[in-house]
């Protein structure tokens, strides 16, 4: 005789049974669709955040305090998050560095750029209480585990990931060279100057209206012990390219960490008809296929929008695309995936959405 002991009903198995029942009762929706009606931050599968406050930093920059929903896994200072913001009814995703964290709140700091659909909306027209879509923090622009002496070279809103690092209690020996249009345009200006006055950092401000652009050839003069430092740079493409070139010339390239907000566009494609699933549109040669698809109403997967995270890749079924950063041509073939955020049509192309 064999004795079969029925498995004991544990709390978790009851819970999973209840979940299955709820799913059967909610079909063709999922139970979360009903929970979203009253508690949009409760969802674990769709991370969202509520805007708590919008605090002006400069005339055209503001810090947005957010309460992330359940499922937020936290961040490492220097990392960025993607925010999905509805502007005029249309969802746009953008990446912003986390500049502060306080308990269960995080902050991003946004600089409104001319014609910037999302940045202007966030800085000027966002009300507390608004719910935005959120993605987990990501990015490897973070301090080393045991940081030695550091040099930050930043420009404009490139200060944002660095501010996140400095606020988290940066190491003792920090030099920050920051470039902005005017003294008033320096985001976090007062706080940085206070840190410098307290001796926590050495701050070199370059104000373009009076000092001109930062000449990277002066870096070894500005920072005599440059060779001993890990260098972090973030800012406009021109600045970052110059820093990279200078450090390469000095043989210090392996000490450089760079965070790009947008790809440096070097090449343009030929343009052509781009087909996304069942939608076909004319795609110009100088615009990322991601933007072209989105404007045509296609539900494009997207990520950092600067060629880093591979969240936007799609199979290229037919035709060719050109990488806007390098000019490289990619032609279709089995298993060929392309980053739509940095690829433009090079003739007709067909992407599998």
């Amino acid at each position, binding site marked *: 005789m064999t004795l079969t002991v029925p498995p004991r009903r544990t709390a978790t198995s009851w819970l999973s049974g209840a979940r299955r029942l709820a799913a*059967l*009762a909610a*079909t063709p*929706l999922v139970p979360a669709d009903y929970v979203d009606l009253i508690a949009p931050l409760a969802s674990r599968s769709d991370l969202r955040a509520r805007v708590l406050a919008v605090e002006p930093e400069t005339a055209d920059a503001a810090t947005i305090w957010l309460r992330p929903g359940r499922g937020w896994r936290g961040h490492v200072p220097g990392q960025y998050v993607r925010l999905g913001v509805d502007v*005029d*009814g*249309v*969802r746009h995703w953008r990446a912003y560095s986390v500049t502060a964290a306080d308990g269960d709140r995080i902050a991003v700091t946004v600089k409104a750029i001319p014609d910037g659909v999302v940045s202007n909306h966030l800085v000027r027209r966002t009300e507390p209480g608004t719910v935005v879509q959120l993605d987990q923090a990501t990015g490897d622009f973070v301090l080393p585990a045991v940081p030695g002496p550091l040099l930050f070279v930043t420009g404009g809103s490139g200060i944002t990931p660095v501010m996140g690092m400095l606020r988290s209690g940066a190491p003792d020996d920090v030099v920050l060279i920051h470039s902005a249009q005017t003294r008033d345009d320096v985001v976090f200006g007062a706080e940085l100057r206070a840190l410098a006055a307290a001796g926590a950092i050495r701050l070199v401000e370059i104000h373009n209206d009076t000092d001109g652009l930062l000449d990277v050839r002066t870096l070894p003069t500005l920072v005599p012990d440059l060779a001993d430092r890990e260098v972090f740079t973030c800012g406009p493409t021109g600045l970052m390219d110059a820093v990279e070139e200078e450090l390469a010339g000095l043989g210090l390239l392996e000490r450089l960490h760079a965070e790009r907000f947008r790809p440096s566009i070097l090449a343009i494609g030929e343009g052509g008809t781009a087909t996304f699933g069942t939608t076909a549109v004319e795609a110009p040669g100088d615009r990322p296929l991601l933007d072209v698809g989105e404007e045509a109403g296609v*539900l494009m997967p997207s990520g950092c929008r600067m060629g880093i995270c591979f969240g936007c890749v799609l199979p290229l079924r037919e035709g060719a695309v050109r990488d806007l950063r390098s000019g490289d041509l990619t032609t279709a073939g089995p298993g060929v995936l392309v980053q739509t955020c940095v690829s433009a049509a090079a003739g007709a192309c067909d992407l599998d*959405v």
Partner: protein
Amino acid sequence: MTALQNQTTSPVAHLTPEEIEELGRALDAIRAEIVASRGADDAAYIRRVIKAQRSLELGSRAVLLFSLFPPAWILGTAGLSVAKILENMEIGHNILHGQWDWMRDPKIHSKSWEWDNATPADAWKHSHNELHHTYTNVLGKDNDLGYGIMRVDEDQKWHPLYLGQPVYNFVNMLLFEYGIAAYDLELGKNLSSKKRRQDPKFKAAYKAVGRKVRKQALKDYVVHPLLSGPSFLTTLAANATANVVRNVWTHSVIMCGHFPSGVETFTRSSIEGETRGEWYLRQMLGSANISGSNAMHMMTGNLSFQIEHHLYPDLPSNRYKEIAPQVEALFQKYGLSYTIGSLPKQVGSAWWKVIRLSLPNNLIGKPASVLPVRPAVERADVAA
């Protein structure tokens, strides 16, 4: 109605090809205006409707947990019926048309939406969006003309089986969601031969419908009744009633779209090389509106603006009302008749057609087409 190309006096004979293209450009301009002005208010509208519908459904199902008590049964059944109608019409049908894709919200997108209906969204999008909306009212191409089981146009050949079509239509009305599922599968065609029956594509589609029907039935006829405990049977009856009410309502509204008198049909050859203007013209003449209150428009999913919907199937439904006067003015300007009537009148007209055309043409005082099928007058002109 006799196919437009077979009528002795065509209602479009007075239009020159240039006028038809001019009409097309005027309609394009209306479209462009709406596309340019889509915005936060529209997005708020569809989210509000979805929220209201889900709250109503949830509330009604909660009330039905106590459906043993007659007042709870009546209230819950009425609420659930309205919720199911809203879900299928103003929400499901319109989202599946891609009317809200521009918002780029994956939760309200034609790619990801699934609806509370026996037929899977993918099957519906093919048969409805691609076939019916492209070949609207073209005999032999648009299966919506009688759904393949009825004769709704004098130019469709009579067969003794059509004698039973008033009964078929009545049964189809009660079971409409399953009728649509069978229609999307093109059962008539696909069951006709062994080769078709064993086609892997058909088998996959058939299985998908089976899965969807099982899940839907499990929800309405097992899970929610079980949750109601002692009210099992009454909740079962309530859910069945709500589904039938939804079926009867949607069937009636949809019959009003293309069956009432005044709506034109077209021959196959007339759409060869059809221009944009001619396509618009066919949509204008091939559809009929329903007059009524805002609540009625909402319950029909704004398909009461069937003409506007057929001209612009992917514009947000909440904007049809706003453009209807402009569209009607174009009908007047170009001497065309804008078919519109109250719901009872249009439903009556459509049913009368189903009953009348169950008989052969010679018994209803209308001989079969005496004129040969010829290309549309305007086509000949364009070619010349």
